[in-house]
């Protein structure tokens, strides 16, 4: 009975607090990877530079008209099913979080996926949102339980071995969130202080690599980090600036400081079993970069924090 209670508790933990978690390690189960090692004790975790993680597959020709996906393609399979299954989180404010008023999951990442649904069906609402734990993002794309992962997910070479990424749709980097009364100007000023990040994330690993030696504290998700911050259990939170902006927006006594000390290019992940789908997604992204949709989406969600920058330039490996 006790074991079942614990099991249920672990599941409940993943529940409302499935973490947003950009920049985290999400290895396939059973496959060894550098990021799965206990990184905080191993600051020399090698960065896999065997590829250009920003380069994706080049779109093939013009986009098919919505509702007329080429026969035999994965898009036709999605069209036949009647909905695009998106894997994301529900507590990364501004990117993909649950709107407490309506109960809908919404944000920049969700809109990116809705634009894909619109290109397939002509209707952005033909989408099913499935919340996945941050360490299930790679495996969910591989096993086909979701069609697409858009979840502040960093494209890196380790993950490229298992999944295809779309071209980059957002450039993030790790910063630090502190109390508005804090004198700290970057993570380097937080030596000996407790800094929170999601358990198993590379954000968490990165904290331990900082020369000033802050103390990394793990919580199930970044929402839980904010709870810990508000209850004075930790002094700061460090992860991708995008997530921090969302957290700071919920707490007037918090501010995001410092330069980005890592680079986190976001891509949408999908199975590499059907490259035509990756090319299709890239074609939609290219169209939306060109016609201003990317810019208006940025302004809708992130406009409060400054004017929209130029969208990341698409790079292709073929």
């Amino acid at each position, binding site marked *: *009975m*006790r074991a*079942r*209670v*614990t*099991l*249920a*508790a*672990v*599941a*409940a*933990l*993943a*529940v*409302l*607090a*499935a973490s947003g978690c950009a920049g985290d390690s999400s290895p396939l189960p059973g496959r060894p990877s550098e990021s799965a090692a206990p990184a905080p004790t191993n600051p020399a975790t090698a960065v896999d530079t065997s590829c250009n993680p920003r380069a994706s597959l080049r779109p093939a020709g013009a986009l098919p008209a919505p509702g007329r996906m080429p026969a035999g393609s994965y898009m036709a399979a999605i069209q036949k099913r*009647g*909905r695009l*299954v998106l894997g994301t989180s*529900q*507590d990364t*404010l501004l990117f993909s*979080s*649950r*709107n*407490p*008023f*309506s*109960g809908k*999951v919404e944000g920049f990442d969700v809109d990116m996926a809705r634009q894909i649904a619109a290109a397939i069906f002509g209707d952005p609402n033909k989408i*099913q*949102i*499935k*919340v*996945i*734990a941050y360490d299930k993002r790679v495996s969910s794309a591989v096993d086909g*339980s979701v069609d697409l992962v858009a979840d502040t997910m960093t494209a890196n070479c380790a993950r490229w071995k298992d999944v295809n990424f779309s071209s980059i749709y957002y450039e993030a980097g790790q910063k630090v969130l502190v109390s508005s009364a804090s004198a700290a100007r970057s993570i380097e000023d937080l030596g000996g202080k407790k800094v929170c990040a999601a358990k198993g994330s590379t954000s968490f690993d990165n904290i331990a690599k900082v020369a000033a030696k802050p103390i990394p504290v793990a919580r*199930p*998700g970044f*929402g*839980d980090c*904010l*709870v810990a911050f*508000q209850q004075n259990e930790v002094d700061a939170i460090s992860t991708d600036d995008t997530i921090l902006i*969302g*957290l700071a927006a*919920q*707490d007037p006594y918090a501010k995001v400081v410092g330069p980005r000390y890592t680079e986190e290019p976001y891509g949408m992940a999908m199975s590499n079993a059907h490259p035509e789908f990756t090319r299709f997604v890239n074609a939609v992204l290219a169209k939306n970069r060109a016609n201003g949709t990317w810019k208006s989406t940025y302004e809708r969600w992130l406009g409060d924090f400054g004017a929209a920058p130029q969208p990341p330039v698409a790079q292709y490996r073929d």
Partner: protein
Amino acid sequence: MSTAQLDRPGPAVAKPSGGVLHHVARLRRTSPGRLQLILAGLVALALLTGLVAGLTTASAAAGTADLGNRAQPLLVEAETIYSALADADTTAAQAFLAGGLEPTALTRRYEDDLDRATTALTSAARRTPETGRSADAIRQLSADVSRYAALVASARANNRQGLPVGAAYLSSASTLSRESLQPQAQVLFKAAQSEVGDGYRAARSSWWTALLVLLLLALLTALVLTQRHLSRTTRRTFNVPLVVATAVTLVLALGAGGVLISQRAHLSEADTEGSWPVALLAESRIAALRERGDEALTLAARSGEGALETDFDQTTGQLDELLADAAEVMPDGTAGSSVRSATQGHQNYVRAHDQVRKLDNSGDYDGAVALAIGSRTSQTFTGVTDDIGRALQDRKDVFSDEIGSAGRGLGPLTVLGPLLALLVCGLAFAGIRARLEEYR
């Protein structure tokens, strides 16, 4: 030991003990001496019987009172704590699923749950000794309940302002509930269950009762043998005081036997018709609430079927078995019809749940949430827990009645037992002294 040794200064203890033995041996050789010995034996046996009668009934009375006033109520309170906490957690998750401002009905239900849990916790603390497993669980629960309430309050304040961090507060609260509060309540429940078992053993006081029966038999036999001896050695057939003493002993034996047999019969009724069904029903209610919690948390997680859905299926199997057992134990009456109705309601609820899963799995999340927290499913589910609650109340009443009856007569017997034994002493003394005086 030889007589020669008696004249020598020896160890202080050896002399009196040797003296008594010697004295007894000498008394046995004369008729008045034998009578004196018999008198001493009868008086000692009667006094011992009186003492044991008092102790037996006192122990049985204390055990019965402890079972009725402490152990069984503690079990009921432990179940209240567990189910109130589980229901509070489920209610909070449902309010979250509803979106927007929490529905008033759910807020009220959550607050009622928390009130019930804290009230039960306070009275459980009164019924628990200060050290031990139960006391530790109660201390932990008291500390965690206030932390839990504070987390939920923060969740609601944040939710009211439209901040998603409210969900993280709720998740922390839920984790606290499922990882600490509910397991501690479970510990308390198990401890209370074993205390009820101990309570029945203490109330039956089997060793004392067996000793009392032996002593009463010995006393009766001794009285009868004494009278046979007297009627053989003297010309009188009956020794009136000894006849009366025998009658008084018989009255004592019948009275004690009657009270103790009735106590045991009522205890056994209280166990089979009260405690056992109460335990079954309490576990059933816990299982039902667990199902509902699994359903709400699965939807809140929004990640399709996972460990919680597996847990739902396992719990459903358990609950079916528990209700089948309950139906066997309670075939008729209020409890019987409530259990039948709960079984039927549970089947309907599981059908609704299967529909919820089907909707969610086919991509209609909003439809699944609407069905799960909609009034029809809620009513079906509340019907199940209400039915179980009705049966539970019925069985609690049966238990109280039986325990009340079991305790009846034990109090008077605690006083009367020793008094009757003293009377037997006095009568034996009177009866034998008359014969002794004939030798003067």
